């Protein structure tokens, strides 16, 4: 005996599994965006030294390390911005993109896991603590990142979520000497 509910579900499944085509150029447009991304992204940085806050994060391959596994937020030195003659190795023989902008800056990627945020900004001594100066982009849903070229030496920073919420990096040292608390990092490299 037929079961009307089951019959309906069978029919529904068949209908919903029918293809729903998009414009024939859809695949090409996707690849166009991916190629544009590949060109504009700082993909020349193949490997970086996790110099911010010592060697805690160890080595990372590629663009993003295993930062999220470590905690809620963080900062990752990707290495210096590569030039044609930039690749070298450190004392342990590991590759380092040694050259940088005028040989002084290192590219540091800041990452914040904020699944419910609509916007995340980075503020710090390197951008005058202006909330609109460095916006993080949402890569994977809920993960916000920005790469910033920083001079070697100490820096203080914080995140501003949804224009209102001041968030320090919970796995970095925090200083609260005056005003709002801020996180600290030290970028290695010769000045």
């Amino acid at each position: 005996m037929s079961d009307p509910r089951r019959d309906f579900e069978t029919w529904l499944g068949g209908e919903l599994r029918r293809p729903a085509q998009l414009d024939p150029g859809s695949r090409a447009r996707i690849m166009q965006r991916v190629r544009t991304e590949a060109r504009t992204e700082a993909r020349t940085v193949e490997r970086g030294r996790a110099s911010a806050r010592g060697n805690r994060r160890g080595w990372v391959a590629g663009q993003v390390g295993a930062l999220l596994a470590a905690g809620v937020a963080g900062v990752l030195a990707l290495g210096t911005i590569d030039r044609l003659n930039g690749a070298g190795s450190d004392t342990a023989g590991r590759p380092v993109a040694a050259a940088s902008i005028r040989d002084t800056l290192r590219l540091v990627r800041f990452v914040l896991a904020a699944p419910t945020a609509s916007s995340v900004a980075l503020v710090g001594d390197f951008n005058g603590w202006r909330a609109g100066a460095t916006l993080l982009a949402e890569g994977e849903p809920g993960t916000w990142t920005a790469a910033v070229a920083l001079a070697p030496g100490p820096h203080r920073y914080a995140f501003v979520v949804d224009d209102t919420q001041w968030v320090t990096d919970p796995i970095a040292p925090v200083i609260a000497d005056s005003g709002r608390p801020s996180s600290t990092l030290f970028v290695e490299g010769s000045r």
Partner: protein
Amino acid sequence: MEPTDTQLVRRVLDGDVDAFAPLVDRYHDRLARYAVRMLGDREDAEEALQDTFLRAYRALDRYRDEERFGGWLFRILVNQCRSVVARRQRRAELLAGARWDPPAVAAAPDAEGEGEGEGEGELREELARALAELPAPAREAVLLRYAEELTYEEMASITGSGVSALKMRVQRACARLRSLLLEVDRV
């Protein structure tokens, strides 16, 4: 032999961006089907699809071999579609302070069916309209269950909802769809 998803991912991570194209080819139609039915609008669906692949590309080094690439991609798409729905709702609230009217899904029901009867086409349009009447979480659950044929455990891992909540949602959504389609029949 065709390279596996994992082999293609490795090639992309090694700098061969063209190796991403076969991944797009492999998963495009399945993702498009979900996005069109979920959003009821081909332009929004294409945008969601583009953003999904782009996000996947950006996050590729976080993809783990033990996870199926298709499932990983699908999770990104589901979140992407949720963002589109939420954005529409926010915009509608801002503009009118009124209930959001879903777009006319009937405008994008299916792939143009060849040789289908007139009655079949009408029924499909009615189904598209009925789907649009469902709240977004219910529509999402129905599509994952019946179009993607996922198990409830797989659905739970993608949506973040519990298995029993999902079962209930699917059951209610089916009952609602049936009653909407029967209403149309009676008119």
